[in-house]
């Protein structure tokens, strides 16, 4: 049985367990719920949990480990000559074996006896695995139901047990977020360490040349590949800077207008309109940048006698800036609105105009919050991927000229990892090292921004 079916069976068994538990509890209490410690439903949940928990854990564990365990068993069963193949060829071979077993198209032309044997072995492995997991699940769940059913008696504190179990489940769920962060850090650090065994960390962080092609043969030109991240970091900064040049003034002025000048009706329409900008998928912005904005700038450049690349940093940065406007504007709007009215009234009382009040009283008071919102927007810009993948270039130029094509950290991660890849080349591992830089930079920016914003909030509360 396939996993979706197994999950369905598990759900059915759980429901069955629930009704069994309820019925059992009522029958031990001579049909009167008042004789029971807990409400009858809790006895149902009690059995349901005893049934669902082991079955669910089994299925999840099996799903997670099945492929890797089966692969290693398959490899162990291969003839010694095939076992000694390099990793990449071995994985290709495994793929072929699986395809052959499933009756799909196989990449190689000669299908020898070894391959056929392996495919037969794999097919038998698959079917026995499915059989085993089905049997194990039935045994575990039915065993759970039986054990729990045997425990049911009027004095059983079913509600307390169920609530305790639920509490454990909730605690586990709330740690998932921490586990995710841990997973991100571990996977990035682990793969980066492997990368740094091939490329020296200092060369990576301070190297001025980025050309990650690793050649097929040792004697080819540029066979080693150069992994200097400086051009990528510079490109990321350039595009983010352009984006912020658009987003910061526009977002801030829009926030000021909405918070201080706009009548409630205008504010009620404009605010959601701006938020739409944040809700549009980035791939749409990328398309817009590549198809409309970049050619526009290129033609504009031609009119003024400038050569503007069709993948210029300007186009990507500008579109990214438009995307980021609402990130600046809504948070700034919040902090400006949070400035106490008394400050405004004091300023008006001294005869200041509205704009003078804003410039000399409100903005200084709201400055930390605004800085925080801008920092958050910068971290968005640095981590943004699709716009730059579609509208910025691939070649790593170390330049500050916004009319030229530059590449960014995220673009390189995508280009290094999309397509065929083996996990031991410096090329793919470099993507994880870049990811680590990206993660650290955005994390630091976020922490600083959130601390500033929170500190500021406390000030006026």
């Amino acid at each position, binding site marked *: 049985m396939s996993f979706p079916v197994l999950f369905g069976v598990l759900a059915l068994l759980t429901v069955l367990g629930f009704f069994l538990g309820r019925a059992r509890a009522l029958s031990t209490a001579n049909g009167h719920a008042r004789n029971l410690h807990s409400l009858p439903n809790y006895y149902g949940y009690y059995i349901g949990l005893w049934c669902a928990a082991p079955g669910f854990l089994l299925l999840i564990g099996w799903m997670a480990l099945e492929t890797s365990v089966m692969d290693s068993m398959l490899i162990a069963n291969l003839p010694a000559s095939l076992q000694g193949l390099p990793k990449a060829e071995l994985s290709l071979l495994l793929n072929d074996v699986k395809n052959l077993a499933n009756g799909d198209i196989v990449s190689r032309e000669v299908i020898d006896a070894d391959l056929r044997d392996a495919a037969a072995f794999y097919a038998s492995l698959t079917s026995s695995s499915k059989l085993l997991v089905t049997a194990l699940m039935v045994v575990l769940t039915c065993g759970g139901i039986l054990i729990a059913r045997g425990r049911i008696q009027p004095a059983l504190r079913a509600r307390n047990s169920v609530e305790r179990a639920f509490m454990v489940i909730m605690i586990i769920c*709330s740690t998932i977020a921490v586990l995710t962060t841990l997973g991100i850090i571990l996977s*990035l650090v682990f793969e980066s360490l492997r990368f740094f065994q091939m490329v020296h960390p200092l060369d990576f962080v301070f190297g001025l040349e980025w050309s990650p092609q690793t050649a097929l043969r040792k004697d080819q030109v540029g066979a080693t590949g150069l992994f200097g991240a400086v051009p990528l970091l510079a490109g990321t900064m350039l595009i983010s800077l352009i984006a912020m040049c658009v987003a910061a003034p526009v*977002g801030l*002025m829009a926030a000021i207008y909405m918070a201080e000048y706009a009548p409630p009706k205008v504010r009620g329409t404009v605010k959601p309109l701006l938020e739409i900008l944040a809700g549009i998928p980035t791939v749409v912005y990328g398309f817009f940048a590549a198809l409309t904005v970049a050619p526009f700038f290129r033609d504009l450049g031609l009119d003024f006698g400038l050569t503007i690349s069709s993948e210029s940093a300007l186009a990507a940065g500008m579109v990214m800036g438009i995307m980021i406007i609402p990130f600046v504007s809504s948070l700034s709007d919040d902090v400006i609105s949070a400035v106490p009215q008394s400050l405004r009234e004091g300023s008006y009382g001294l005869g200041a105009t509205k704009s003078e009040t804003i410039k000399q009283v409100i903005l200084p008071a709201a400055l930390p919050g605004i800085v925080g919102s801008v920092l958050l927007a910068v971290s968005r810009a640095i981590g943004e991927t699709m716009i730059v993948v579609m509208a910025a270039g691939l070649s790593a130029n170390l330049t500050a000229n916004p009319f030229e094509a530059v590449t960014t950290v995220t673009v390189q991660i995508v280009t290094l990892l999309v397509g065929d890849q083996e*996990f031991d080349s410096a090329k793919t591992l470099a993507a994880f090292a870049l990811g680590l830089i990206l993660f650290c930079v955005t994390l630091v920016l976020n922490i600083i921004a959130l601390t500033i914003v929170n500190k500021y909030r406390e000030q006026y509360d």
Partner: protein
Amino acid sequence: MTDAATTLNGPSGGGFTNRLSDEAVRKNLKRRYAAERRFKTYGILAIAFAVCMLGLLFSTIVSKATPAFTQTMINLEITLYPQDIDPEGTRDQATLSGANYRSVIRQAFFDLFPDVTSRRDKRQLYEMISPGAVYIIRDMVMANPNLLGERVTVQMPMSDDIDQLNKGQISKDVPETERRVKDKQIGWYERLENRGMIETVFNTTFFTAGDSREPELAGIWGAAVGSFFTMLVTLLVSFPLAVCAAIYLEEFAPVNKWTQTIEVNINNLAAVPSIVFGLLGLAVFINFFGMPRSAPVVGGLVLALMTLPTIIIAARSALKSVPPSIREAAFGLGASPLQVILHHVMPLAMPGILTGTIIGMAQALGETAPLLMIGMVAFIVDVPQGALDPATVLPVQIYLWADSPERAFVERTSAAICVLLAFLVFMNVSAVFLRKRFERKW
């Protein structure tokens, strides 16, 4: 404004100061009011800029997308000679499926142009019909073998270049070497049009087909189904996890170092770039657990981890907004803490939680970058049948088409964007509706 300035200035300052400083004050005021107006204008300009860009974005996409909803077809009369298709007369499906329909179409098409004789011209002529025409005839014959020997009129798609020509996207003024449609082809096309054989119909292929290298045969159905499976996995994983986590953190968690760590973590996780989640998926799900590449299951898991913080934060604020009096009343009646939450607080917080979930799902639906990392960019023609089949999703399909060089893919990309935006608008509108309809102010 100047009038207002003088009247303002008149009674207050006029009586006590001499004319000179009065003048200076008036001048100064004029300057200050001008600055005020300028400042206000900057604000309006900023908003106008943002709104204009939004309008420009939408109008560009929609105007580029409209041609994609129609397709140029040719109504070609074809005689299905049995000796070409089924010489043995067995009518079995294998023969019918393997027959050379290409030559059948070629013959019928070339008969229309007896003057075209050279091999090169013939090739150019046949290029005007989509390669998908073969499958239309094949499916027709296989569905109804009795058609053999009949003369039937079949509506077949023209190739993407001719389609673009029909839609006026290819200018005839451009030198021949620089455009995809040659002069001869334009001539043939005009002859076909004069005979009334060309028809522009609603493009159903776009909504029912999977991906294809030929723009006229490419559709979004495969990607839409892939998106559906991915979203299903995301919802099934993230919703229960997020709700449980939110209940625990908001209602039960003691205030200590550990829960503070979790809270800081969730806030930071919400701001981690999406591409980093893709790296996590690649390293953990695919490399470590050996899950299949390009499968909606992996995509769904990655997106679930990504939307988790969004839903948790929304769910927590929804729980927080339920007033304590509800809890106290329930406690007073003897409910256990968990009963208070599950029976009384949760139903009241549900609209808020659902709103947050929908918004999180809308984000996940538009997400592209992490899915590129886990191989959902593969060129997949088949419509996926389950969450374990290789698939792609709508935004990735948009990315793939945007990268394609064919002119006709531009309009299809825009049309796919329109479909994606329609889904997003629907989700967000339903979120707003939920909030308006069910949210209670206490």
